[in-house]
C-alpha cells in the first residue's frame, strides 16, 4: 500500500502554514534561499469550499491515473508512493487532467545551465509537481509538524490497519447496542 498524507478537515483552520512549509521543503530553482512568487510552488493547497476548509494533496493512489496517463513514463511508483522523474517530464499536463484530486500541477522552472556554457541559461523546464512525501527529507513530510492544530497525518499500512480495526470495533459495538430483531 502506498503511504499518503491526509488532513482531518474538522481540524483545519485554513491558516496556510502547511502551504509555506511545503513550498520551503521544495525550493524551485537553484540557490533559492528566499521564496518569491516565481519559486513559490506548494504541492498542497488549502481549499475553502462551502463548509469545508482543508488542504488538498496527492492521495498516492495504488492504481494511479497519473501513472497510467503519463506518455513519457515520468511518473512511477517508488518509496511506497507515487514519484515523478522530472528529467522525463515533457509538461504535457495529461497527468493534471487525469488526477481526480487536482493534486498535480505542471510548472515551469529555470533549467540548469549547460556545463561549460558561457551564458547563464534562461531555458525553462517543465515539472509535474505533486506531493512526494518529502522523500528527500529525513524527518518525513514537512507539512505534518508545521500544522498548529495537528490536522495532517501520514497514513501508512500500520496506521491504516489501526484505523480499520478501530472502525470495525466501533461497528461491532453499534451492532451490539442498536440492532434488535
Amino acid at each position, binding site marked *: 500500500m502506498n503511504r499518503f498524507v491526509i488532513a482531518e478537515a474538522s481540524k483545519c483552520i485554513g*491558516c*496556510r*502554514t502547511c502551504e509555506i512549509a511545503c*513550498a520551503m521543503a521544495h525550493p524551485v530553482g537553484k540557490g533559492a534561499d528566499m*521564496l518569491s512568487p516565481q519559486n513559490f510552488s506548494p504541492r498542497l493547497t488549502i481549499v*475553502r469550499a462551502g463548509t469545508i476548509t482543508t488542504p488538498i494533496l496527492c492521495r498516492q493512489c495504488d492504481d494511479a491515473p497519473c501513472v497510467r496517463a503519463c506518455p513519457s513514463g515520468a511518473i512511477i511508483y517508488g518509496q511506497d508512493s507515487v514519484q515523478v522523474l522530472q528529467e522525463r517530464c515533457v509538461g504535457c499536463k495529461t497527468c493534471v487532467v487525469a488526477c481526480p484530486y487536482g493534486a498535480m500541477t505542471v510548472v515551469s522552472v529555470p533549467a540548469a545551465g549547460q556545463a561549460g556554457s558561457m551564458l547563464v541559461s534562461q531555458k525553462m523546464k517543465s515539472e509535474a509537481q505533486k506531493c512526494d512525501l518529502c522523500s528527500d527529507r529525513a524527518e518525513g513530510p514537512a507539512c505534518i509538524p508545521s500544522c498548529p492544530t495537528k490536522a495532517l497525518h501520514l497514513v501508512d499500512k500500520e496506521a491504516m490497519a489501526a484505523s480499520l480495526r478501530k472502525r470495525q470495533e466501533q461497528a461491532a459495538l453499534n451492532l451490539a447496542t442498536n440492532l434488535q430483531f
Partner: protein
Amino acid sequence: MKKVITVCPYCGSGCKINLLVKDNKVVGAEGANGVTNQGELCLKGYYGWDFLNDTKLLTPRLKQPMIRRQRGGDLEAVSWDEAIEFASSRLKAIKEKYGPDSIMLTGSSRGTGNESNYVAQKFARAVIGTNNIDCCARVCHGPSVAGLMTTLGNGAMSNSICEIEDTKCILVFGYNAADSHPIVARRILKAKEKGAKIIVCDPRYIETARLADIFLPLKNGSNMALVNAFANVLIQEGLFDKEFVANYSEGFEEYKAMVAKYTPEYTAEITGLDPELVRQAIRMYAGAETATILWGMGVTQWGQAVDVVKGLSSLATITGNLGKPNVGVGPVRGQNNVQGACDMGTLPNTLPGYYYVTDAAAREKFAKAWGVASIPSEKGYGLTDVPHKILEGKIKANYVFGEDPLQTEPELSLVRKAFAELELIIVQDIFMTKTAMIADVIFPATSWGEHENVFSSADRGFQRCYKAIDPPADHNVKDDWEIHSMMARAMGYPMKYNNAQEIWDELRGLCDLYAGATYEKMADLGYVQWPCPTEDHPGTPWLYEGKKFDTPTGKALLFAAEWRAPLEKVDADYPLGLCTVREVGHYSCRSMTGNCSALQTLADEPGFVQVHPEDAKKFGIKDQSLVWVSSRRGKVITRANLNNRVNQGAVYMTYQWWIGACNELTVDHLDPISKTPEYKYCAVKVEAIADQSWAENYVQTEYSKMKADMRKAALA
C-alpha cells in the same frame, strides 16, 4: 548554531519561539514549549523572522539617524548627537511656545517591549509634562479596556488562553480566531473535541463557524441588539444565576428595564436572525456548567463598542461565569504587546499599573519616584483625537514610536492633511514606513531579536524575549529606551538606564500589580500573569477570586444600552458596507511581515476585497479581477475574491495593503467613550475595470514606485 528563546512578535497569543542563530544571523525558528503555544506555531511564528536580514522586499530597514532640515526637502543622514540635538531643541521650543500639551506621543504595541513603553510614557509625563500618549489599543481593544474597567474593574482577559479548552461552552462574538490568533483557534478546536458547545456570532461564515453548534450570522452593525436580546431571554426565561446577581452584581433593575423591549422577536429585523435560534444560543450558553465569551475587533471597532463590551461582560456576570477557572470574558488582544503597552501606561488616562492620572496619591508616588514636582492630572489626547487636535491647532508636534498612523488610522486623507500641519514629526521605528516618509526626524531602533525585553500576552502573561543577535555592523541603531533617554537628557532630565532589567525593576517597584514579576521568574519559558503582587506570588491565571471584583464597590456592574445603527448608510451610490478585517499571514501595517519572503510571497499587493457571488453578479465583478473600491473619502484598487462565506450586502478588505489601502475608505467615526473608529462599517461601491491589463500594470507600477521611493529615502 545556538537557540535563543523569544516570544513571537506578531499576535497576542504569546507563543514562545526558539530562534536558530548562526554567526549572528537568524536562520530559522522552531516552536518552544511555551505556556500558551505548547510547542506549536503558526505561519507568522515559523516564517516571520527574515525581516531581520533587511530583505527590502517591501521597505528598507532604518539604519542611521536622519533629519529633514526643511519640509519637502530630502532626509539627511546625521550622527546621533546631531539628530538628538535637532529633535530635542525643536521639541523644547514647541513646549515653551505652546505648552507641553501641544506635544503628542505614542507608545508601541509591537516588537519593542514593555520596558521601552514604560520609558516612553515616563518621557511624556516626566520630561514633556503631558498625558498625551496613547498606543494602538485605541484603534483596537480600547473599548474592551474601557468597558471592562467599568463593569469588572480590570480591562484584560479575565481567564487564561489555556483555560479555553476546558470550558464547556464558548460564545465567539465578532472574533475570527483562525485568522487573528491561529494558536488560540487551536484551543477552541480542543474545547470542541472535549465536548464544549460552540456558538459563533459573526456576519461571515468564519472558520470557527464550521465547528459551531449554533451559528448566528447577524447583520453588520447589530451587535448591541443581539447582546440585549441575549440578556432579555436570560431574564425572561429565568436562566440567570439569581444568587450571583443578588450578591455580586449591581444595577440589575436598570439592566432588566433596558433590555425589556429587546426580545429576539423585536431585534429580528435589526439582526436578521431567527428569534428561535437566538433563544437556543443563549440557552446553550446559560445552560453550560462553565462558559467563556471571546471577542475581537468585530465587537470593538464600531461607533458603539464600549456599550457592547459592557453588555457581553453583563452576560458573563448574570450567568455567574466569572471568578472561577474556565469561564470569563476574553477580549483577545491583537498586537503582540498591545496588552503590554496598556500595562505600561502608554494610555492618556492611566499610569503604569493602571493607576488613573486623576488619582492624586498615585501621581504623587510616580512624581516622587521620577524626581519631578508633579505629573499632569488631566487625561491626555487619544490617538484618534490627533488629526482633529492638529487641525484645531492644539497639537504641534507628534513623536510617533513604532507605529504607522498613515497606514493604520481611519480616513487616511484626513490624517495626511492633519500631519502636514504639524511643526515637528519624529518617527522612531525599525523600517521606513508611510509616516517615516514625511518625518522631520527619524530615529532608527533595534528590532525584536536585537534586544531583550518583556512582552505581555493577551491573557496578562509576562514573558521574556532574549536577545538573539547584535544589529548588523552597518546599522547605527539604538534600543528604543536608550533613544528616549537621550532625548530626555538633551531636554534637561537625567534619564539613564544600563539595561532593560533596570527599567523593569523600576516599574515593578511602582506597580502593585507587577511587583512580584521578576526577570528570574520569567526566565526561559517562565510565564507570570499579573496581578503578581509579591515575589513569592505565582501570578494570577484567572481574576476575581471569591467573586470580588476590582470595581469601587467590589461588585460587577450590569449594563445595557439602546442599540445605535452604524454612522454611514448604504445608498444607491455606495450600496455595500465595507468591513475591514485581517490577513492571516500579515501583521499590523505590514512593515515587518511584508519583509518576510514566505509571508510576502503567500499574500501580496493589492490584497483582496471579499465579495458575495450574488453581489459580484449584480456589479459585474469577476473573481480575481482587479476592481476599484471607493467610498465618499477615497478610492483604491484591489482584487476581487468571490466568496460565498461572506454575507450579501457587505464586502471585506484586509488592512495590511499599502496600495489596496482600505483605510483610504474608512470613516473617522468614533465610539464616544473609547474613541475607537468604526473600521467595521462604511458605505462603498465596487466597480469593475474593463482593461485588466492596464489595471495589472497600474498596480505593479504604483507598487514599484512606492518601494523605490522608500528605498531612496532610506539611503539618504
